[in-house]
């Protein structure tokens, strides 16, 4: 495989990380919590699509929509049951709860779908792109991942900056009490954030499982953590940051795997994160938060 092939694979994986990282960053930015169960929502989304397509023979695109609806509902439910009662609690309690939710989802999936990984049928049927007389072939999953991630970043940026609900999100993200004084319903805004984040997780699930077609109850865990790294890398809370972070992590991982060592690829990803955080603790596009008393 040539360098360009690796680069394209990196961009493909990076675009998927970007979509996952957007969910992380959105929830972190507004609810100020790390939703470690985010990766597992991706897995649930994958299983919903799998069940729809393979067992019930539903059209792939309809399956994605159903999966998005299911994940959105799941996200809202998780927030309501697990996180909302902890709104005034320390961030450590919330973090531990999120890890608990993550294990809960993984084990529920294990119980329902069994331990044996299933083979996922790609939901994407775009034509391949062949460049330079067949020297470079861009798989349809890659094209889809890139297009979808760009659309989501643009759409999300517009939503947050141009709509009333988006403005409410920005206000809640900065100061919950002050937001309430403006008449913003903080609980509803946080709920909406989880809904969007989880809907995105379903999309990420479709892309991830189509590109790497093996689905098990831990499928979401590692990409979830990598995407979290990507969100931190790009500057957690920043939408374009999640995109850039995702792409870079994907490219670093694939190039590391190809040219340095397949075993060390993950270690390289985390090493790069540590270096970036040492140089710029807020991440690439992270905002400097000035603490005024």
């Amino acid at each position: 495989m040539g360098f360009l092939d690796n680069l394209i694979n990196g961009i493909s994986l990076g675009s998927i990380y970007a979509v996952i990282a957007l969910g992380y960053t959105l929830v972190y930015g507004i609810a100020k919590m790390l939703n470690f169960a985010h990766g597992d929502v991706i897995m649930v989304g994958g299983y919903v699509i799998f069940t729809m397509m393979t067992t019930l023979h539903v059209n792939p695109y309809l399956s994605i929509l159903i999966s998005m609806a299911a994940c959105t509902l799941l996200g809202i439910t998780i927030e309501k049951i697990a996180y909302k009662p902890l709104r005034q609690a320390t961030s450590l309690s919330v973090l531990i709860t999120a890890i608990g939710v993550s294990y809960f989802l993984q084990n529920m999936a294990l119980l329902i779908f069994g331990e044996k990984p299933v083979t996922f049928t790609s939901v994407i049927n775009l034509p391949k792109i062949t460049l330079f007389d067949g020297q470079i072939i861009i798989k349809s999953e890659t094209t889809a991942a890139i297009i979808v991630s760009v659309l989501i970043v643009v759409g999300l940026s517009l939503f947050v900056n141009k709509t009333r609900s988006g403005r409410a999100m920005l206000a809640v993200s900065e100061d919950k009490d002050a937001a309430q004084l403006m008449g913003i319903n903080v609980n509803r805004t946080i709920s909406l954030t989880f809904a969007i984040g989880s809907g995105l997780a379903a999309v990420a699930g479709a892309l991830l499982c189509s590109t790497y077609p093996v689905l098990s109850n831990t499928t979401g865990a590692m990409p979830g953590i990598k995407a979290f790294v990507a969100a931190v890398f790009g500057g957690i809370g920043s939408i374009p940051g999640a995109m850039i972070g995702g792409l870079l992590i994907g490219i670093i991982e694939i190039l590391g795997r190809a040219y340095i060592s397949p075993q060390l690829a993950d270690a390289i990803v985390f090493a790069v994160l540590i270096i970036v955080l040492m140089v710029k603790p807020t991440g690439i596009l992270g905002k400097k938060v000035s603490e005024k008393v």
Partner: protein
Amino acid sequence: MAMLEVKDLCVNYGMIKALKGISFDVNEGEVIALIGANGAGKTTTLHTLTGILHAKSGSIVFEGMELTKTPAHNIVKLGIAHVPEGRRIFQQLTVLDNLKLGAFIRNDKDGIAEDMEKIYKRFPRLAERKSQIAGTLSGGEQQMLAMGRALMSRPKMIVMDEPSMGLSPIMVSEIFNIITSIREDGTTVLLVEQNAKKALSIADRAYVLETGKITLSGMASDLINDEKVRKAYLGE
């Protein structure tokens, strides 16, 4: 009946009794000052009024509506705007976005645009800095923004928590002039201040709060001459 009636209000922070049964009222069109030392419960009173804190017992009635069970985000809809202590503007957003958020509960586009113009007239510095990030404004400008943001909800009553805190003497005078002009426009003002002298000079009536209780109340012009008040709060 008074516009706002607070009766036997008790508020706790965990085990600490912050308010031990305070009662006061505000009539429409008045400027009422709530003065007292640090920790007397002034901010607690305002936070309970606008729903950020919840009362343990007692009642707050605004135009016949009981507020103690009303969620914070609905209170502004009833016509009470809060200018919080420390201004609490949205630092990372622009001046314009802050003002727009002040009008979050409103849907009348024309009315909002009209009020925006009024606020720019009242605070010309905000007009100049419309598209600037709010966190880069000076302290006085941030206070003006916090006031402008509150006025954008077109409140019947505005409650202000230490609007003069941390400002230069010139700016303090300007802020008090603005409060007077807000009142002249027909908005009722409930003012919490440590600068008791200034507060009493513009208020109609005042209440003195000491460790969770109201110890003194009356016409501001009387209180300003009261010996106890002069000693304890006016530094004389």
